[in-house]
């Protein structure tokens, strides 16, 4: 089938359908994005730099880490390696999405470019309503979440202290999103073992290594267990 251009009405309808799924991300990304833009501002990096970082790197937690890198000696290689390690969990998102993102054509690179924790969680955990094509659901979820992060950053950088919504604890909205999507995954019997595996392995490494270095060992352990399990199947 030829990939025909959807009408404006179809686009509106599809965005309206996808939007509710992204409301928690809207809340979280605006708050965190503004905080990021503001922090960059206080270190002397104006909205141009913070927004450019959000557009090109699009990696929440690493961007906060990177503020420290921008305020010390110039070392791009170190920045690259640290960014690769902090973002290593994306590798697993990609592995999990290989099949879903197959045959996405022109938008595929954009979907990969914007595959963040939140977008991955929504796309891999939610049942897509029958009234929308999976491709459109993936695209608008990715696009909206990407725009939220950039808008938040831009607002924080431009308006600075004037607008910062300082509600302590509001960023918990993203934790809540992950908890709910975890519960969604656990509704399926065949997923439960792997859900518990993820929690337990990560908790064990967190206790052993502390909050700075536990993610990569957790990922490797999870991957090893899954590969061994697959062989035994």
């Amino acid at each position, binding site marked *: 089938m030829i990939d025909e251009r959807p009408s404006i009405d179809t686009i509106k309808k599809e965005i309206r359908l996808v939007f509710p799924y992204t409301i928690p991300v809207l809340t979280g990304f605006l708050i965190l994005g503004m905080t990021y833009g503001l922090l960059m501002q206080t270190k002397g990096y104006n909205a141009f730099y913070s927004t450019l970082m959000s557009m090109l790197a699009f990696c929440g937690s690493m961007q906060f880490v990177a503020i420290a890198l921008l305020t010390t000696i110039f070392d791009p290689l170190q920045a690259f390696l640290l*960014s690769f390690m902090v973002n290593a969990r994306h590798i697993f998102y990609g592995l999990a999405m290989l099949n879903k993102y197959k045959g996405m054509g022109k938008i595929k690179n954009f979907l990969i470019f914007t595959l963040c924790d939140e977008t991955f969680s929504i796309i891999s955990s939610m049942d897509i309503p029958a009234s929308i094509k999976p491709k459109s659901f993936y695209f608008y979820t990715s696009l909206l979440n990407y725009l939220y992060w950039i808008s938040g950053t831009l607002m924080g950088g431009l308006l600075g202290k004037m607008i910062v919504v300082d509600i302590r604890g509001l960023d918990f909205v993203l934790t809540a999103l992950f908890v709910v999507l975890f519960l969604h995954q656990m509704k399926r019997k065949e997923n439960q073992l792997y859900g518990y595996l993820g929690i337990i392995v990560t908790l064990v490494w967190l206790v052993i290594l502390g909050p700075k270095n536990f993610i990569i060992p957790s990922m490797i352990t999870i991957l090893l267990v899954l590969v061994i399990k*697959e062989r035994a199947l």
Partner: protein
Amino acid sequence: MILTPIQTLIMIIAIALGSMLTRFLPFVLFPETKAPSQKLIFLGQALPPAMMGLLVVYCLKDIKLVSTPYGLPELLAIILIVVLHKWKENVLISIGLGTIFYIILLNFVFI
């Protein structure tokens, strides 16, 4: 601003490259033209629930269990989210009320 504008741009590109490498690597290693192995199909099914578990723990990593409020706001809010979700099965209600409850606990109860 400690770095020069050019240095800053190079840093932004370096960080973007590190981030993008993690995103594109799986798709480069396993292109669409290759038929996916049994192993990859299995990983596609088992990784999402495992990674959601990892993400939940990741969000809670900075809680201090040995000093006040001992992670209680997080624990209570998550219990509420689980109960609400089992009961109503509405994503926005669970997330919205859970977050509001957490904000109240953090700002008015465990000050």
